[in-house]
Protein backbone atom coordinates (compact mmCIF):
# COMPACT_ATOMS: atom_id res chain seq x y z
CA UNK A 1 0.00 0.00 0.00
CA UNK A 2 1.35 3.42 -0.93
CA UNK A 3 1.98 6.02 1.75
CA UNK A 4 -0.55 8.41 0.26
CA UNK A 5 -3.17 5.63 0.24
CA UNK A 6 -2.49 4.80 3.86
CA UNK A 7 -2.82 8.43 4.89
CA UNK A 8 -6.03 8.86 2.90
CA UNK A 9 -7.52 5.76 4.53
CA UNK A 10 -6.46 6.89 8.00
CA UNK A 11 -8.11 10.24 7.42
CA UNK A 12 -11.26 8.57 6.20
CA UNK A 13 -11.33 6.25 9.20
CA UNK A 14 -11.14 9.22 11.56
CA UNK A 15 -13.80 11.11 9.58
CA UNK A 16 -16.10 8.09 9.61
CA UNK A 17 -15.54 7.55 13.31
CA UNK A 18 -16.58 11.13 14.01
CA UNK A 19 -19.53 10.96 11.62
CA UNK A 20 -20.82 7.76 13.23
CA UNK A 21 -20.20 9.20 16.70
CA UNK A 22 -22.43 12.19 15.83
CA UNK A 23 -25.06 9.85 14.46
CA UNK A 24 -24.98 7.73 17.63
CA UNK A 25 -25.36 10.77 19.88
CA UNK A 26 -28.29 12.00 17.83
CA UNK A 27 -30.14 8.74 17.29
CA UNK A 28 -29.56 6.59 20.35
CA UNK A 29 -31.52 7.68 23.38
CA UNK A 30 -30.71 4.93 25.88
CA UNK A 31 -27.57 5.73 27.91
CA UNK A 32 -26.45 2.13 28.11
CA UNK A 33 -26.71 1.59 24.36
CA UNK A 34 -25.09 4.93 23.64
CA UNK A 35 -22.05 4.03 25.70
CA UNK A 36 -21.70 0.52 24.27
CA UNK A 37 -22.20 1.51 20.65
CA UNK A 38 -19.74 4.42 21.04
CA UNK A 39 -17.21 1.97 22.41
CA UNK A 40 -17.69 -0.31 19.40
CA UNK A 41 -17.39 2.66 17.06
CA UNK A 42 -13.98 3.47 18.55
CA UNK A 43 -13.07 -0.22 18.48
CA UNK A 44 -13.76 -0.57 14.77
CA UNK A 45 -11.61 2.51 14.06
CA UNK A 46 -8.71 1.03 16.04
CA UNK A 47 -9.25 -2.38 14.46
CA UNK A 48 -8.99 -0.90 10.98
CA UNK A 49 -5.94 1.20 11.89
CA UNK A 50 -4.08 -1.77 13.35
CA UNK A 51 -4.94 -3.95 10.34
CA UNK A 52 -3.73 -1.33 7.90
CA UNK A 53 -0.55 -1.15 9.94
CA UNK A 54 -0.10 -4.92 9.74
CA UNK A 55 -0.99 -5.28 6.09
CA UNK A 56 1.16 -2.45 4.81
CA UNK A 57 4.12 -3.10 7.17
CA UNK A 58 4.45 0.61 6.57
CA UNK A 59 8.00 1.20 5.63
CA UNK A 60 7.89 4.38 3.66
CA UNK A 61 10.59 5.37 1.32
CA UNK A 62 10.04 8.91 0.27
CA UNK A 63 11.60 12.15 -0.66
CA UNK A 64 9.35 14.82 0.75
CA UNK A 65 9.03 17.89 -1.42
CA UNK A 66 8.42 20.22 1.47
CA UNK A 67 8.63 20.36 5.23
CA UNK A 68 4.81 20.27 5.31
CA UNK A 69 4.75 17.03 3.36
CA UNK A 70 7.36 15.58 5.70
CA UNK A 71 5.23 16.70 8.65
CA UNK A 72 2.12 15.05 7.18
CA UNK A 73 3.92 11.74 6.81
CA UNK A 74 5.43 11.78 10.27
CA UNK A 75 2.15 12.93 11.83
CA UNK A 76 0.17 10.04 10.39
CA UNK A 77 2.85 7.61 11.48
CA UNK A 78 2.73 8.99 15.03
CA UNK A 79 -1.06 8.77 15.17
CA UNK A 80 -0.87 5.22 13.89
CA UNK A 81 1.85 4.33 16.36
CA UNK A 82 -0.01 5.79 19.32
CA UNK A 83 -2.94 3.46 18.62
CA UNK A 84 -0.76 0.38 18.40
CA UNK A 85 -1.24 -2.05 21.25
CA UNK A 86 2.51 -2.66 21.52
CA UNK A 87 3.18 1.06 21.95
CA UNK A 88 0.31 1.57 24.40
CA UNK A 89 1.55 -1.33 26.53
CA UNK A 90 5.15 -0.15 26.43
CA UNK A 91 4.17 3.40 27.45
CA UNK A 92 2.00 2.12 30.27
CA UNK A 93 4.72 -0.15 31.59
CA UNK A 94 6.98 2.90 31.95
CA UNK A 95 4.34 5.19 33.41
CA UNK A 96 3.31 2.65 36.04
CA UNK A 97 6.63 3.28 37.78
CA UNK A 98 5.47 6.77 38.70
CA UNK A 99 1.72 6.85 38.34
CA UNK A 100 0.28 3.51 39.40
CA UNK A 101 -3.29 4.62 39.89
CA UNK A 102 -5.52 6.46 37.46
CA UNK A 103 -3.70 8.19 34.61
CA UNK A 104 -5.37 11.54 34.26
CA UNK A 105 -3.00 13.92 32.55
CA UNK A 106 -5.55 16.74 32.66
CA UNK A 107 -4.50 17.08 36.29
CA UNK A 108 -1.42 18.91 35.10
CA UNK A 109 -2.69 20.47 31.88
CA UNK A 110 -5.87 21.80 33.46
CA UNK A 111 -5.42 21.62 37.25
CA UNK A 112 -8.30 22.67 39.49
CA UNK A 113 -5.98 24.53 41.81
CA UNK A 114 -2.33 25.01 42.46
CA UNK A 115 -2.16 22.09 44.91
CA UNK A 116 -3.53 19.81 42.23
CA UNK A 117 -0.68 20.91 39.96
CA UNK A 118 1.93 20.79 42.73
CA UNK A 119 0.98 17.28 43.83
CA UNK A 120 0.89 15.79 40.37
CA UNK A 121 3.22 17.66 38.05
CA UNK A 122 6.42 15.89 39.11
CA UNK A 123 4.94 12.46 38.53
CA UNK A 124 3.75 13.22 35.03
CA UNK A 125 6.95 15.07 34.10
CA UNK A 126 8.97 12.11 35.37
CA UNK A 127 6.98 9.77 33.18
CA UNK A 128 7.95 11.91 30.16
CA UNK A 129 11.57 11.92 31.31
CA UNK A 130 11.55 8.16 31.84
CA UNK A 131 10.01 7.49 28.42
CA UNK A 132 12.79 9.45 26.74
CA UNK A 133 15.44 7.67 28.84
CA UNK A 134 13.89 4.28 28.10
CA UNK A 135 13.88 4.89 24.35
CA UNK A 136 17.44 6.21 24.31
CA UNK A 137 18.63 3.21 26.31
CA UNK A 138 16.79 0.74 24.16
CA UNK A 139 17.13 2.18 20.65
CA UNK A 140 20.50 2.68 19.04
CA UNK A 141 20.92 5.77 16.94
CA UNK A 142 22.10 5.03 13.43
CA UNK A 143 22.38 7.36 10.54
CA UNK A 144 20.36 5.98 7.64
CA UNK A 145 21.45 6.82 4.15
CA UNK A 146 17.90 6.31 2.82
CA UNK A 147 14.80 8.07 4.00
CA UNK A 148 12.91 5.23 5.54
CA UNK A 149 10.49 5.76 8.39
CA UNK A 150 9.50 2.67 10.22
CA UNK A 151 6.27 2.22 12.16
CA UNK A 152 6.72 2.78 15.90
CA UNK A 153 6.32 -0.91 16.94
CA UNK A 154 8.86 -1.91 14.27
CA UNK A 155 11.42 0.59 15.64
CA UNK A 156 10.89 -0.84 19.09
CA UNK A 157 11.37 -4.34 17.77
CA UNK A 158 14.48 -3.68 15.66
CA UNK A 159 16.18 -1.54 18.30
CA UNK A 160 17.70 1.06 16.02
CA UNK A 161 16.68 4.09 14.03
CA UNK A 162 17.58 7.58 12.92
CA UNK A 163 16.13 10.89 14.03
CA UNK A 164 12.80 10.49 12.26
CA UNK A 165 12.39 7.02 13.79
CA UNK A 166 13.17 8.44 17.23
CA UNK A 167 10.60 11.18 16.58
CA UNK A 168 7.95 8.65 15.56
CA UNK A 169 8.61 6.28 18.45
CA UNK A 170 8.89 8.91 21.19
CA UNK A 171 5.90 10.89 19.96
CA UNK A 172 3.79 7.74 19.62
CA UNK A 173 4.61 6.71 23.18
CA UNK A 174 3.81 10.20 24.49
CA UNK A 175 0.64 10.48 22.47
CA UNK A 176 -0.59 7.10 23.65
CA UNK A 177 -0.50 8.55 27.18
CA UNK A 178 -2.32 11.72 26.06
CA UNK A 179 0.66 14.02 26.37
CA UNK A 180 0.43 17.06 24.11
CA UNK A 181 2.90 16.33 21.36
CA UNK A 182 4.44 18.35 18.56
CA UNK A 183 7.41 17.85 16.28
CA UNK A 184 10.26 20.23 15.68
CA UNK A 185 12.14 20.67 12.41
CA UNK A 186 15.50 22.35 12.30
CA UNK A 187 17.93 22.31 9.36
CA UNK A 188 18.51 18.59 8.71
CA UNK A 189 17.13 17.45 12.00
CA UNK A 190 13.73 16.44 13.31
CA UNK A 191 12.81 15.77 16.92
CA UNK A 192 9.80 14.99 19.06
CA UNK A 193 8.63 17.72 21.43
CA UNK A 194 6.22 17.93 24.29
CA UNK A 195 4.00 20.72 25.38
CA UNK A 196 4.24 20.61 29.14
CA UNK A 197 3.02 22.94 31.83
CA UNK A 198 5.45 24.73 34.08
CA UNK A 199 4.57 26.67 37.20
CA UNK A 200 6.13 29.83 35.88
CA UNK A 201 5.53 33.26 34.52
CA UNK A 202 1.94 34.28 34.82
CA UNK A 203 -1.06 33.89 36.98
CA UNK A 204 -4.35 33.07 35.36
CA UNK A 205 -6.86 35.69 36.46
CA UNK A 206 -9.75 33.28 36.70
CA UNK A 207 -8.15 30.19 38.19
CA UNK A 208 -5.32 31.95 40.03
CA UNK A 209 -3.08 29.18 38.78
CA UNK A 210 0.43 30.06 37.83
CA UNK A 211 0.85 27.89 34.77
CA UNK A 212 2.44 28.43 31.42
CA UNK A 213 2.98 25.86 28.70
CA UNK A 214 6.46 25.21 27.40
CA UNK A 215 7.62 23.47 24.26
CA UNK A 216 10.09 20.90 25.51
CA UNK A 217 12.33 19.43 22.81
CA UNK A 218 12.76 15.73 23.48
CA UNK A 219 16.19 15.70 21.96
CA UNK A 220 18.51 14.10 24.46
CA UNK A 221 19.15 17.44 26.18
CA UNK A 222 21.45 16.80 29.15
CA UNK A 223 24.06 18.87 30.93
CA UNK A 224 26.93 18.21 33.22
CA UNK A 225 27.16 20.85 35.90
CA UNK A 226 29.81 21.30 38.52
CA UNK A 227 28.67 20.37 42.04
CA UNK A 228 26.14 17.99 40.53
CA UNK A 229 27.11 14.34 40.31
CA UNK A 230 24.32 13.31 37.99
CA UNK A 231 23.52 14.86 34.64
CA UNK A 232 20.84 17.53 34.58
CA UNK A 233 18.04 17.08 32.07
CA UNK A 234 15.67 19.61 30.64
CA UNK A 235 12.89 18.06 32.73
CA UNK A 236 14.63 19.21 35.92
CA UNK A 237 14.00 22.80 34.92
CA UNK A 238 10.34 22.07 34.37
CA UNK A 239 9.69 20.56 37.72
CA UNK A 240 9.10 23.58 39.90
CA UNK A 241 9.67 21.56 43.05
CA UNK A 242 12.62 19.48 41.88
CA UNK A 243 15.62 18.67 44.04
CA UNK A 244 17.71 20.30 41.33
CA UNK A 245 16.16 23.73 41.91
CA UNK A 246 16.45 23.41 45.63
CA UNK A 247 20.12 22.44 45.41
CA UNK A 248 20.76 25.25 42.97
CA UNK A 249 19.43 27.79 45.45
CA UNK A 250 21.43 26.27 48.29
CA UNK A 251 24.62 26.36 46.24
CA UNK A 252 24.14 30.05 45.50
CA UNK A 253 23.37 30.79 49.13
CA UNK A 254 26.65 29.04 49.95
CA UNK A 255 28.36 31.58 47.67
CA UNK A 256 29.00 29.27 44.71
CA UNK A 257 27.84 31.89 42.24
CA UNK A 258 29.70 30.40 39.28
CA UNK A 259 26.91 27.85 38.99
CA UNK A 260 24.67 30.62 37.66
CA UNK A 261 27.10 31.28 34.83
CA UNK A 262 26.72 27.65 33.79
CA UNK A 263 22.95 27.93 33.88
CA UNK A 264 23.15 31.03 31.70
CA UNK A 265 25.29 29.05 29.24
CA UNK A 266 22.58 26.38 29.18
CA UNK A 267 20.01 29.04 28.39
CA UNK A 268 22.15 30.29 25.50
CA UNK A 269 22.66 26.78 24.15
CA UNK A 270 18.93 26.14 24.25
CA UNK A 271 18.23 29.15 22.07
CA UNK A 272 19.25 26.77 19.23
CA UNK A 273 15.73 25.33 19.51
CA UNK A 274 14.18 28.75 18.89
CA UNK A 275 15.04 28.37 15.25
CA UNK A 276 13.02 25.18 15.00
CA UNK A 277 9.66 25.12 13.32
CA UNK A 278 7.11 23.29 15.45
CA UNK A 279 4.12 21.40 14.10
CA UNK A 280 1.32 20.01 16.27
CA UNK A 281 0.25 16.39 16.43
CA UNK A 282 -3.54 16.38 16.82
CA UNK A 283 -5.39 16.94 19.06
CA UNK A 284 -2.82 19.67 19.77
CA UNK A 285 -3.47 22.70 17.60
CA UNK A 286 -1.26 25.34 15.98
CA UNK A 287 -2.69 28.10 18.13
CA UNK A 288 -1.68 26.22 21.30
CA UNK A 289 1.90 26.01 20.05
CA UNK A 290 1.92 29.74 19.38
CA UNK A 291 0.96 30.43 22.99
CA UNK A 292 3.81 28.33 24.35
CA UNK A 293 7.07 29.51 25.87
CA UNK A 294 10.33 28.43 24.28
CA UNK A 295 12.60 26.26 26.36
CA UNK A 296 15.37 28.86 26.75
CA UNK A 297 12.76 31.37 27.98
CA UNK A 298 11.87 28.87 30.68
CA UNK A 299 15.49 28.60 31.76
CA UNK A 300 15.74 32.42 31.73
CA UNK A 301 12.68 32.51 33.95
CA UNK A 302 14.20 29.94 36.29
CA UNK A 303 17.29 32.14 36.57
CA UNK A 304 15.26 35.24 37.40
CA UNK A 305 13.09 33.29 39.85
CA UNK A 306 16.17 32.04 41.65
CA UNK A 307 17.46 35.63 41.79
CA UNK A 308 14.21 36.69 43.38
CA UNK A 309 14.24 33.84 45.90
CA UNK A 310 17.83 34.62 46.88
CA UNK A 311 17.12 38.32 47.26
CA UNK A 312 14.13 37.47 49.41
CA UNK A 313 16.21 35.10 51.55
CA UNK A 314 18.93 37.70 52.03
CA UNK A 315 16.41 40.38 52.97
CA UNK A 316 14.79 38.11 55.56
Amino acid at each position, binding site marked *: MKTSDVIA*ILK*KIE*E*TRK*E*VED*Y*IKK*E*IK*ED*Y*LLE*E*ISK*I*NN*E*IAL*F*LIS*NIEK*SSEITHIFKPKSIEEYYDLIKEKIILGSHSEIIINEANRIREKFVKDEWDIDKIYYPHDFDDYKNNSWKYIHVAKEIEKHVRDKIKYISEPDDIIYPAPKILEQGYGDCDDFTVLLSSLFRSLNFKVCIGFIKNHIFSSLVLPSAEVYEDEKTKINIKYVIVPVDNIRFKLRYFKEEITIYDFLDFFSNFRERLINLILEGKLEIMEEIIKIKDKLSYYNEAKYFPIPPLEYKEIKECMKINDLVAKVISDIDLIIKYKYEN
Partner: protein
Amino acid sequence: MKINYKDIEEKIINLIYKPEYLGFIDIFTLKIIFKDIDIKELLRYLKKDGWEIKENYLFNKNILKKIFYEEREKLKKEILDIDNKINLYKKFEESLDNIKEKWLNNFKDNLFIENLINKFFLNKFNRINENINNLINRKKENEKIINTIEEKYRKLFK
Protein backbone atom coordinates in the same frame (compact mmCIF):
# COMPACT_ATOMS: atom_id res chain seq x y z
CA MET B 1 -29.64 -44.88 71.93
CA LYS B 2 -32.93 -43.12 71.51
CA ILE B 3 -33.43 -41.61 68.05
CA ASN B 4 -34.55 -37.99 67.98
CA TYR B 5 -37.06 -37.92 65.12
CA LYS B 6 -37.61 -34.19 65.56
CA ASP B 7 -33.97 -33.62 64.54
CA ILE B 8 -34.33 -35.90 61.56
CA GLU B 9 -37.47 -34.05 60.51
CA GLU B 10 -35.48 -30.79 60.62
CA LYS B 11 -32.81 -32.38 58.45
CA ILE B 12 -35.42 -33.51 55.92
CA ILE B 13 -36.95 -30.02 55.85
CA ASN B 14 -33.53 -28.49 55.16
CA LEU B 15 -32.97 -31.04 52.45
CA ILE B 16 -36.24 -30.49 50.60
CA TYR B 17 -35.69 -26.74 50.56
CA LYS B 18 -32.73 -27.36 48.23
CA PRO B 19 -33.52 -26.66 44.57
CA GLU B 20 -32.85 -30.24 43.50
CA TYR B 21 -35.67 -31.54 45.75
CA LEU B 22 -38.23 -28.76 45.33
CA GLY B 23 -40.25 -29.67 48.44
CA PHE B 24 -40.46 -33.44 48.22
CA ILE B 25 -38.20 -36.44 48.44
CA ASP B 26 -38.70 -39.96 47.16
CA ILE B 27 -38.67 -42.73 49.71
CA PHE B 28 -35.80 -44.53 48.01
CA THR B 29 -33.51 -41.50 48.38
CA LEU B 30 -34.68 -41.07 51.95
CA LYS B 31 -33.70 -44.66 52.71
CA ILE B 32 -30.23 -44.11 51.27
CA ILE B 33 -29.66 -40.89 53.20
CA PHE B 34 -30.95 -42.24 56.50
CA LYS B 35 -29.78 -45.81 56.04
CA ASP B 36 -29.11 -46.35 59.76
CA ILE B 37 -32.58 -45.35 60.78
CA ASP B 38 -35.72 -47.40 60.88
CA ILE B 39 -37.59 -45.71 58.04
CA LYS B 40 -40.95 -47.21 58.98
CA GLU B 41 -40.69 -45.68 62.44
CA LEU B 42 -39.57 -42.38 60.95
CA LEU B 43 -42.47 -42.26 58.50
CA ARG B 44 -44.90 -43.10 61.28
CA TYR B 45 -43.56 -40.17 63.27
CA LEU B 46 -43.64 -37.83 60.27
CA LYS B 47 -47.20 -38.77 59.33
CA LYS B 48 -48.31 -37.79 62.79
CA ASP B 49 -46.69 -34.42 62.13
CA GLY B 50 -48.63 -33.73 58.92
CA TRP B 51 -46.42 -35.42 56.32
CA GLU B 52 -47.85 -37.50 53.52
CA ILE B 53 -46.64 -40.11 51.04
CA LYS B 54 -47.99 -40.09 47.51
CA GLU B 55 -46.51 -41.57 44.31
CA ASN B 56 -43.66 -42.80 46.50
CA TYR B 57 -42.80 -39.21 47.47
CA LEU B 58 -42.65 -37.87 51.00
CA PHE B 59 -43.87 -34.31 51.41
CA ASN B 60 -45.54 -31.88 53.74
CA LYS B 61 -48.33 -29.96 52.03
CA ASN B 62 -47.68 -26.67 53.79
CA ILE B 63 -43.99 -26.72 53.06
CA LEU B 64 -44.53 -27.99 49.55
CA LYS B 65 -47.00 -25.21 48.77
CA LYS B 66 -44.59 -22.59 50.03
CA ILE B 67 -41.62 -23.96 48.11
CA PHE B 68 -43.60 -24.46 44.89
CA TYR B 69 -44.98 -20.96 45.05
CA GLU B 70 -41.65 -19.32 45.83
CA GLU B 71 -39.79 -21.31 43.23
CA ARG B 72 -42.34 -20.64 40.53
CA GLU B 73 -42.34 -16.90 41.24
CA LYS B 74 -38.56 -16.84 41.22
CA LEU B 75 -38.44 -18.58 37.86
CA LYS B 76 -41.13 -16.34 36.39
CA LYS B 77 -39.22 -13.26 37.52
CA GLU B 78 -36.08 -14.69 35.95
CA ILE B 79 -37.94 -15.24 32.69
CA LEU B 80 -39.04 -11.60 32.72
CA ASP B 81 -35.44 -10.50 33.27
CA ILE B 82 -34.30 -12.75 30.46
CA ASP B 83 -36.93 -11.26 28.13
CA ASN B 84 -35.72 -7.76 28.97
CA LYS B 85 -32.13 -8.74 28.30
CA ILE B 86 -33.07 -10.35 24.98
CA ASN B 87 -34.89 -7.17 23.97
CA LEU B 88 -31.87 -5.10 24.88
CA TYR B 89 -29.59 -7.33 22.83
CA LYS B 90 -31.95 -7.04 19.90
CA LYS B 91 -31.95 -3.26 20.15
CA PHE B 92 -28.17 -3.38 20.44
CA GLU B 93 -28.00 -5.58 17.34
CA GLU B 94 -30.20 -3.15 15.45
CA SER B 95 -28.03 -0.14 16.38
CA LEU B 96 -24.91 -2.09 15.52
CA ASP B 97 -26.36 -2.92 12.14
CA ASN B 98 -26.98 0.77 11.49
CA ILE B 99 -23.42 1.80 12.30
CA LYS B 100 -22.06 -1.11 10.27
CA GLU B 101 -23.98 0.23 7.27
CA LYS B 102 -22.49 3.69 7.84
CA TRP B 103 -18.94 2.33 7.94
CA LEU B 104 -19.53 0.18 4.86
CA ASN B 105 -21.06 3.07 3.01
CA ASN B 106 -17.99 5.23 3.59
CA PHE B 107 -15.63 2.51 2.37
CA LYS B 108 -17.63 0.97 -0.44
CA ASP B 109 -14.82 1.77 -2.88
CA ASN B 110 -12.24 -0.15 -0.87
CA LEU B 111 -12.67 -3.91 -0.86
CA PHE B 112 -9.88 -4.46 1.66
CA ILE B 113 -11.47 -2.17 4.28
CA GLU B 114 -14.95 -3.43 3.42
CA ASN B 115 -13.84 -6.98 4.22
CA LEU B 116 -12.29 -5.84 7.49
CA ILE B 117 -15.50 -4.05 8.49
CA ASN B 118 -17.57 -7.15 7.69
CA LYS B 119 -15.17 -9.33 9.62
CA PHE B 120 -15.27 -7.03 12.67
CA PHE B 121 -19.06 -6.82 12.77
CA LEU B 122 -19.55 -10.52 12.03
CA ASN B 123 -17.56 -11.25 15.15
CA LYS B 124 -19.71 -8.79 17.16
CA PHE B 125 -22.98 -10.20 15.81
CA ASN B 126 -21.85 -13.76 16.48
CA ARG B 127 -21.18 -12.88 20.08
CA ILE B 128 -24.54 -11.17 20.48
CA ASN B 129 -26.32 -14.14 18.91
CA GLU B 130 -24.47 -16.49 21.17
CA ASN B 131 -25.63 -14.45 24.17
CA ILE B 132 -29.21 -14.33 22.90
CA ASN B 133 -29.20 -18.10 22.32
CA ASN B 134 -27.88 -18.73 25.80
CA LEU B 135 -30.64 -16.55 27.22
CA ILE B 136 -33.30 -18.33 25.15
CA ASN B 137 -32.00 -21.68 26.38
CA ARG B 138 -32.13 -20.45 29.98
CA LYS B 139 -35.66 -19.22 29.43
CA LYS B 140 -36.71 -22.59 27.97
CA GLU B 141 -35.12 -24.39 30.88
CA ASN B 142 -36.98 -22.21 33.37
CA GLU B 143 -40.25 -22.78 31.57
CA LYS B 144 -39.62 -26.50 31.64
CA ILE B 145 -38.98 -26.41 35.39
CA ILE B 146 -42.17 -24.41 35.96
CA ASN B 147 -44.14 -27.00 33.97
CA THR B 148 -42.56 -29.85 35.95
CA ILE B 149 -43.34 -28.08 39.23
CA GLU B 150 -46.93 -27.44 38.26
CA GLU B 151 -47.40 -31.00 37.08
CA LYS B 152 -45.92 -32.39 40.29
CA TYR B 153 -48.04 -30.00 42.32
CA ARG B 154 -51.20 -31.17 40.59
CA LYS B 155 -50.33 -34.83 41.11
CA LEU B 156 -49.41 -34.51 44.77
CA PHE B 157 -52.39 -32.33 45.64
CA LYS B 158 -54.91 -34.40 43.74
